[in-house]
């Protein structure tokens, strides 16, 4: 009879609906690469991150991966409102399962909320603020490549311990700059140094002359640059013009990428101390990746943010394959934390309960022009900070996932 048949149909539909959750949404993994595609952070991430994602997908397929992967890119213009509306559109309407990269900490914090709200995945490679694994941590976000705590304890600690015990900060006036200044001040004070003052400049400042003048007037031994990308490049360039080093002070570039050194040139950048977690010339795996990357990226070599996009996606693919599903963000991220990581670029590592990916950090010094033998031969390794010391201890972050 009709009623019984519709009851039977309903039962069949209910059964199949249950199994549908074990499938991939839309039958594929869709990746959204969001970053600053055209502004001051476009070279450290930008279109290069899309290339890195494509290489990760290629390697996954070459290793026998069967899932279909599609990749789209988007520009957040360093604005949290633009970033979060793009993220909502991607997650809701365009079927994106995971958003990667996102430099500019204010945007990353906004998307962090959106991903948790929609129960999707957010793999941060480009942003710095350690709050992402601290008070803003969620079960949907993993912070991959680096963070402000690691930078402060890498570069900051090394400089204080070698005699730079009075600091003046030039800080980018938004979430990232404040976080980096706060973390580095803590390290300076903990190691017996003093912070003599700070000046906050707007993001994307072309002219630092006025701020450098204030830094010189403070007579601090070290001028800490709590900014990145184009801001750091301008500050370093103009400080050589204003005789900062001749006047007896030194610069500490707290966040410097390979692309920044390339833009400054070795003559200006030589001697700069910086901390990164990945450098293209450290081993054969990195060099092989760099060759493929440069071929697709107009000859420009990868930064650690690009390497982080590749590495985080490689691990994501493994987790999705193990689960055979990607619809539930919390479940996928939990799987990524459960499985130890192993990829050609970062080697073996682990993702902690608070969403922090753990790997060693490296203290580099920029080479002098005569020491550089081939293109992009910019760094010499000064020290390796082992993985268990490079990042903030688990119980100090204030992450609700840890204490709760």
């Amino acid at each position, binding site marked *: 009879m009709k009623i019984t048949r519709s009851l039977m149909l309903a039962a069949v539909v209910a059964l199949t609906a249950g199994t549908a959750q074990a499938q991939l949404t839309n039958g594929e993994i869709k990746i959204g690469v969001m970053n600053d595609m055209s502004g*001051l952070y476009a070279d450290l991430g930008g279109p290069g991150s899309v290339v890195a994602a494509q290489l990760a997908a290629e390697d996954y397929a070459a290793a026998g991966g069967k899932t279909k992967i599609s990749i789209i890119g988007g520009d957040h213009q360093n604005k949290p409102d633009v970033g979060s509306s793009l993220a909502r559109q991607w997650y809701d309407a365009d079927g994106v399962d995971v958003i990667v990269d996102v430099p500019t900490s204010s945007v990353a914090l906004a998307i962090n909320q959106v991903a948790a709200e929609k129960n999707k995945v957010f793999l941060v490679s480009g942003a710095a603020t350690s709050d992402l694994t601290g008070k803003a941590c969620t079960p949907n976000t993993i912070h991959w490549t680096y963070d402000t705590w690691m930078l402060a304890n890498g570069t900051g600690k090394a400089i204080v311990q070698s005699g730079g015990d009075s600091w003046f900060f030039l800080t980018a006036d938004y979430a990232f700059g404040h976080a980096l200044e706060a973390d580095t001040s803590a390290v300076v004070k903990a190691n017996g140094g003093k912070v003599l003052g700070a000046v906050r*400049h*707007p993001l994307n400042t072309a*002219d630092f002359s006025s701020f450098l*003048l204030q830094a010189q007037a403070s007579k601090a031994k070290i001028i800490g640059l709590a900014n990145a*990308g184009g801001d750091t*490049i301008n500050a370093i360039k103009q400080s050589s013009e204003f005789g900062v080093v001749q006047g007896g002070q030194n610069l500490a570039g707290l966040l410097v990428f390979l692309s920044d050194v390339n833009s400054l040139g070795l003559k200006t950048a030589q001697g700069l101390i910086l901390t990164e977690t990945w450098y293209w010339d450290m081993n054969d795996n990195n060099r092989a990746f760099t060759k493929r990357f440069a071929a697709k990226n107009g000859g420009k070599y990868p930064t650690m943010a690009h390497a982080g996009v590749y590495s985080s996606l490689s691990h994501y693919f493994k987790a999705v394959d193990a689960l055979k599903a990607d619809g539930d963000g919390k479940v996928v991220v939990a799987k990524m934390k459960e499985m130890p990581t192993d990829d050609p670029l970062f080697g073996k590592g682990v993702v902690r309960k608070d969403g922090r990916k753990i790997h060693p950090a490296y203290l580099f010094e920029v080479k002098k022009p005569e020491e550089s033998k081939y293109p992009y031969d910019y760094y010499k390794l000064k020290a390796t900070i082992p993985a268990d010391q490079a990042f903030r201890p688990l119980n100090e972050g204030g992450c609700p996932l840890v204490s709760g």
Partner: protein
Amino acid sequence: MFELLGISPQALFGQLLIGLINGSFYAMLSLGLAVIFGLLNIINFTHGAQYMMGAFCAWFLLEYSGLGYWWALLVAPIVVGLTGVIIERLFLKHLYKLDHLYGLLLTFGIALIVEGLFRNKFGSSGQPYRIPGELLGGQNLGFMFLPNYRAWVVVASVVVCLATWYVIERTKLGSYLRAATENPSLVQAFGINVPRMITITYGFGVALAAFAGVLAAPIYQVSPQMGSNLIIVVFAVVVIGGMGSILGSIVTGFGLGVIEGLTKVFYPEASNTVIFVVMGIVLLIKPAGLFGRAH
């Protein structure tokens, strides 16, 4: 009194000097804009891109033909001025009789295309360009260390600005230009080639922008964004000074540079926006601008 303000007199004079230096860029760029608007009635949004092209031209010359800074000061304005002439001949001359808005849209579109092309090729971090050897180093003035190059920038822009003002306001050629834009048909009846004057004027305004670009290349990174970062501020300067006034844009450029410099001392977070606050106030009180004539 200075102690009350929380800053020493040395630091204050240093910041004022820095403000003057920045003001000289604003003055030169707004001068080019004022010349083009005052004489041609075109709102030239491409100005920022042309400033950027001047800087890139200097970089090209050094990179590919070894010609240094002093050659670039001469060659870059000519080269970029010629591209300006081409734009004027091909596109702009059709728009003179139309509303201002068409000129704005066209030049804005050209600016976007040019910047996009450069960014596609060169990325956004910028290229290094060294300060020429003769201008390296600086003077220790006691209250601050003044780089020689920055002092040269102030001198060069004051000279160029005053020379331009003199040519336009005090010479026969300048008077022809001013007459040609007020009443083209009458001036043409006297046998003066008005379209050619207009083309030369646009080319000259563009060359001024490129000259500012070459001056800027050693200080700021030569990057595709350098123009778009500056152009909005320069437009604010021109609006405050009065859209058609040559003297107004020079004086306002230097003045606003100083105001911005002072803001950076007392409340640096606002240094991006103070010029727009001033523009808002001036527009409320005197809509034609401080030196402008109401149209």
